[in-house]
């Protein structure tokens, strides 16, 4: 029963995130906006897709956190999470003070490694709480925060699902590819939420009369113009950090994981 409820909650929250973020791509095909008049009629001006979606993502994130926080009931896990989040926040602070090239950011590698070693739930909390804490410290709280937390949480969750091969080189290669992929995906997904903010209700209009393919092409142009180069630097930075620090950091974390799970019978 417990497991079924947890699985249902996780699947529903994940589905909500996906539906909400992918909606702008399918909107024109759904509501069939084909003319300016129809567009204007469909635009109450006050409906605010961005407002609705931020609310939905916020609700979904709160529900997920409420469910997943049961993992932190152990004092050792709470302390480990707190300290690892502090280290990640310091890295983000360094990044804010000395911006790296393009979108390079050292905050994703600790989230990936923590998720990989400690598991998906820990990874989810590490991702969401790292974004929350660093936003509080760097004065970055805003409507973008739920999205950042959500996607960083996904980074941690998926890292926990990766296989654990014995071969160190294979492990490193797998993590490097994974970090590269998330470097690109993070920008792509966050741009999906930012797109309607910048384009307003007109994001749908750009593909007026067209299908999903046209909207995807329109989003592709927006992504290439705003985020692609930025994300390439982030992904390459992730690979470099994983290669430089991955294996020894995993070894250190694994040693502590065994100590954290030690209990007297």
């Amino acid at each position, binding site marked *: 029963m417990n497991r079924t409820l947890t699985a249902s909650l996780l699947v529903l929250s994940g589905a909500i995130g996906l539906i909400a973020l992918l909606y702008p791509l399918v909107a024109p095909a*759904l509501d069939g906006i084909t003319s300016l008049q129809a567009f204007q009629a469909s635009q109450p001006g006050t409906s605010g897709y961005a407002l609705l979606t931020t609310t939905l993502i916020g609700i979904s994130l709160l529900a997920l956190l409420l469910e997943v926080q049961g993992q932190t009931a152990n004092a050792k896990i709470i302390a480990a999470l707190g300290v690892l989040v502090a280290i990640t926040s310091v890295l983000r602070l360094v990044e804010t003070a000395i911006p790296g090239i393009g979108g390079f950011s050292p905050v994703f590698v600790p989230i990936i490694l923590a998720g990989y070693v400690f598991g998906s739930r820990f990874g989810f909390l590490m991702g969401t709480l790292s974004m929350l804490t660093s936003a509080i410290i760097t004065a970055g709280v805003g409507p973008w925060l739920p999205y950042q937390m959500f996607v960083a949480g996904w980074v941690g969750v998926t890292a926990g699902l990766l296989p654990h091969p014995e071969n160190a080189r294979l492990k490193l290669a797998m993590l490097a590819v994974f970090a590269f992929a998330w470097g690109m995906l993070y920008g792509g997904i966050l741009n999906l939420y930012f797109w309607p903010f910048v384009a307003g209700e007109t994001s749908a209009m750009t593909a007026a009369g067209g299908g999903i393919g046209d909207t995807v092409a329109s989003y592709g142009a927006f992504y290439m113009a705003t985020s692609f180069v930025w994300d390439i630097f982030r992904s390459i930075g992730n690979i470099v950090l994983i290669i430089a620090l991955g294996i020894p950091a995993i070894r250190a974390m694994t040693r502590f994981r065994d100590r954290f799970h030690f209990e007297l019978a």
Partner: protein
Amino acid sequence: MRFNSRAWMVWVLVVAFLAMFARNPLYSIILLALSLLAIQYYARIESPVRSMFLQISLGILLFSAIYHALFIHIGDHVLFELPQWPLIGGIITVEAIADGFRNGLVLIALIATFMALNTIVPSRELVRLVPAAFQDLAVVVLIAITYVPETRRHLRRIREAQAIRGHRPRGFRDWRPLILPLLVGGLERAMRLSEAMVARGHVSERAENSRAPERILLIAGLFTALIGWVMAILWGVSGYILLSLGGLVLVLIVVRKGRRVRRTSFVAVPWTATDTILVFTSLAALILVIAPWPVIGRLSLSYVPYPLLKMPEFHPLVGLALILLSFPILMGMTTQRDHDRMTEPDQNATSSREGIRQAR
């Protein structure tokens, strides 16, 4: 004059909600001005932050205008025509550029609102706003915030120790001797901290986090919110009601769970009459703008510059509702005037002493 952080939070959420809700540039300008004035009276921000905000704002306006000009080829005032390139080919119109500026303004107003929250409310009070139901997560965030200065000191100590040994970081691989001791040292601290927490009575394991009926209700609330979101996008008002219902279910669960948590507050933050007035005026402004009153010019909340560019409509009642949000600014102005008046006699005394000295 200082407001309670909870009252500020209500004000910020209302301003942010209205910034996204009312997409008329005139109202956006009012909301932007309110946020900037709040920062001026209640926060001390350094000039680099101010210039960064200005640069970001100009960047957003410019990007949004160019984006709309290239992607929306509608409007009567044609500036020029691009060849039929995929996606961006077609006429470039004044209307599209104006629409871009309108959108940019909404974004800037939103950023300014949250800049007000970030600069006015201290980070510790922001953590205090976390509901009791999320107690464990709040503890993690508090540990992290407390350990950030310690982690920075730890990193500096490691750098100094490695420098004494002749280590100079050049490439990425040279960061390994800095980052790994930071990680291991941090995890060692986590061990010590967890032992201290258990010694001070922190419950080491809890078998169950949420009760099954609560979790079923949570799933039902989430599902209702999702259906509400879909309906709000496709059909409007009925969807808003369902979305709110889903949110309400979540709030009820959070309140219920929060009641089961015992919380100790060492420093009580006072709630004064001015906090109540701030919350009341903010909510009044929200209700006045979003409720479907027949006298409020709801059409003026939107602004579509197509097909012919025209001045945005300004409805005095909506303007009046937004003015309600200026309560903290009026209080800030009054406090500053009182402060100036308090310091004035000294200045007068100084100037009169100067006058007497000169007369002699």
